[in-house]
């Protein structure tokens, strides 16, 4: 009997033991993994003294920008592979560390601090919230914060933001160029009506001052139609847009908001050839809404798209051709891919100029900043309009062009041009001055 009782108790106890054991070993394993993690990151800190120039590219692969980031990052890394394959710059290789910050500030700040310790001289977070949160740190630590197509528009004013580098036409310039294109088409915008359909976030409202200022100057009337973020339902807004009978429509959003805007515009019979987007629309978006349905839609192009630019052709031959591509070959030459190539090319050009100015380094943030702010007439072999960055103008001249979707690709409608920079710079100066005096 006692045997039976013991027998009855024992399995229970053993199961409990097992349970405890799994729990304990589970906790132990987790702790061990965490510790290994620490050791790994320390290791990589030690390995940083080879002949490399460290760039940090923590970007949002998983939360909001997703496929935008994937294509952008693929382009940037392919370009770095191309440069490194040709021997790097002055014998130095570009080491771009790519990771995911999921648009989450603690993760982004962790990545920033970790990379800073590893000697990073440039960081490209490709996210407006993250860029805004990193501004004060970057200014303090003298690390070049690239905010291409993101971050503060007024960072174009290099006197106030010495280490914040948009290095691309900011949203105000894009608005200015789009309006000038409308003017070129209609000869005169007096009495016309232009509407802005935008996501109701700070990013979406950013271009409004430029549209308003130009409206006063050129005599068109201007109206805004905000939709709620994230923008996957805009069905209430577009009938109102139709009723407003606009001559031109600008739609301003990113990611899912863009494709939704296009399909709602089609549904409401807005003429596609009277609609324009900022930089944030690509071939992948057209796949979603139907390539033929949106024939004629316009966009702002900061650099050439497609595979014909020489740099992209070189990447296909020397990187993808050798199986060293960073992603699917089908994506090479898409708009966002080429943005990535463009930004990587500008960064590398900055490194090249920095070596020209101070061949012996030391390789630091200020050293690279000297190079980036002395880029002169750089076109990346025809990929982008001639770009000149100075200590005062971090935008690089504010040139771009307008392209039209023809059902298969974006076809340029204009040459590279710049317009309305007086209005844009007035706004930049005003906003930067405001930042300097009040921190807003």
């Amino acid at each position, binding site marked *: 009997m006692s045997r039976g009782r013991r027998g009855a108790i024992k399995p229970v106890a053993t199961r409990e033991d097992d349970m405890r054991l799994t729990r304990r070993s589970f906790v132990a394993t987790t702790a061990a993994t965490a510790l290994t993690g620490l050791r790994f990151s320390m290791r990589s800190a030690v390995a940083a003294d080879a002949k490399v120039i460290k760039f940090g590219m923590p970007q949002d692969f998983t939360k909001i920008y997703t496929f935008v980031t994937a294509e952008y990052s693929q382009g940037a890394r392919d370009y770095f592979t191309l440069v490194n394959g040709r021997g790097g710059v002055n014998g130095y290789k570009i080491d771009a560390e790519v990771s995911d910050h999921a648009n989450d500030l603690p993760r982004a700040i962790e990545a920033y*601090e970790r990379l800073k310790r590893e000697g990073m001289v440039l960081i490209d977070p490709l996210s407006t919230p993250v860029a*805004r949160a990193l501004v004060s740190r970057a200014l303090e630590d003298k690390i070049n914060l690239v905010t291409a197509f993101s971050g503060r528009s007024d960072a174009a004013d290099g006197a106030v933001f010495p280490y914040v580098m948009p290095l691309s036409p900011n949203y105000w310039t894009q608005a200015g160029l789009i309006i000038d294109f409308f003017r070129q088409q209609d000869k005169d915008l007096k009495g016309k009506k232009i509407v802005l359909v935008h996501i109701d976030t700070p990013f979406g409202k950013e271009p409004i001052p430029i549209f308003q200022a130009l409206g006063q100057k050129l005599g068109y009337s201007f109206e805004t139609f905000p939709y709620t973020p994230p923008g996957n339902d805009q069905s209430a807004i577009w009938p109102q847009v139709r009723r407003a009978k606009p001559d031109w429509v600008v739609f301003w959003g990113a990611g899912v908001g863009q494709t939704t805007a296009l399909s709602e515009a089609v549904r409401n019979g807005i003429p596609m050839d009277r609609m324009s987007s900022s930089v944030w629309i690509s071939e992948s978006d057209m796949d979603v809404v139907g390539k033929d349905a949106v024939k004629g839609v316009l966009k702002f192009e900061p650099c050439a798209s497609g595979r014909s630019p020489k740099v992209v052709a070189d990447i296909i031959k020397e990187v993808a051709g050798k199986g060293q591509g960073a992603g699917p070959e089908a994506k090479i030459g898409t708009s966002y891919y080429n943005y990535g190539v463009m930004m990587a090319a500008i960064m590398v050009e900055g490194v090249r100029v920095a070596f020209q100015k101070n061949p012996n380094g030391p390789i630091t943030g200020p050293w690279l900043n000297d190079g980036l702010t002395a880029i002169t007439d750089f076109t990346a072999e025809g990929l982008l309009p001639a770009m000149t960055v100075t200590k005062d103008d971090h935008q690089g001249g504010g040139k771009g062009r307008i392209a039209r979707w023809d059902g298969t690709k974006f076809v340029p409608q204009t040459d590279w041009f710049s317009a309305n920079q007086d209005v844009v710079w007035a706004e930049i100066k005003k906003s930067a001055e405001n930042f300097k005096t009040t921190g807003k």
Partner: protein
Amino acid sequence: MFYRRAGIRHTTYRQERQLWPLPFDRFLVGLVAALLIIAPFVVDRLYLVAYLLPWLIWSSAALGLNLLMGGAGQIHLGYGAVMAIGAYTSVHLVRFGTPFELAMVAGGLASAVIGSIFGFAALRVKSLYLAMATIAMQYIVDFVITHVPGISGGGMASVEVPPVRFLGILIEGDLRTYFMALAVCAVVALFMLNVGRTAFGRALAAVREKDYAAEIIGIDTFKYKLLAFWSSSFIGGVIGCVLVVCYLRSVSPEQFHLDLSIQLLAMVIVGGLGSVLGSFFGAGLILFAPIVFNNLIGAGADRLGIAIGADLRAHLPLMLYGALIVVFLIIEPLGLAKIYDNVRNYFLVWPFRHARR
């Protein structure tokens, strides 16, 4: 062996009422406190500013939410908005020249007032319906912030935090911001440890278990539900202020979106509802599991020479993170704090398993 439970019997009420009656627990708490105090001098700067500092701040916020959720049983999905109110109020007050100490309290009060107004919903609705009402708060506050240029800071929607002094000490650099956050966290943690032993805390517990029953035994549920919202929102407001002053250094609307509210909710649930220790564990897991996995996978792939695509490399940490949360909740639905408690209970009389506990 560690706790020597068998040999200790309290002889005075004072002894019995201590926060940590067992010497070993007191030793552990003292050890952790000492480690946190000497950490800035021994730990690498990276771990101080990118791990310890956010951990302390997020833990404090989780504690504040835990008072409402674990203490009073009222669900809140808009705690990020509560923190936003405190952050914006205090930063704007500091910009207008208010001393930081006052601005911090004023931030807390503003959060408490607005938080309690939305708390009125809790008088009428419960559980999922209350969750919806508090989500509404999140969206309304977000909307107001982005649409009033005076609050958000205008076109760029970002307001830099001016240099602030707390009791005459300039809060800047890594050390002072850390100690500021540590001090606030300690105050909140002590409050939370003690609140359960007060009449207020017991009333909240009664409301949490069943509000009709609480009413019958003479607890004014109207008052205590609102007080729960009031005090929890006050803590949220103060922590929002600490978050922007010590860690983010600028305020913009995206910092306080629904993501933050959900993150805090996850910390409270994964850590353990109503547990002080759990809030710290939960904050640690939710904040750092993705980062640690990210670094591990990145470093591992580089060192072992495995080619992982960027997409997979970005998503794999999130998959592991999700799996980890599920596994933890399956092992112990009551949260990480309960896992700790199980271990502690086991060792309480170890090596004797059948002694009285």
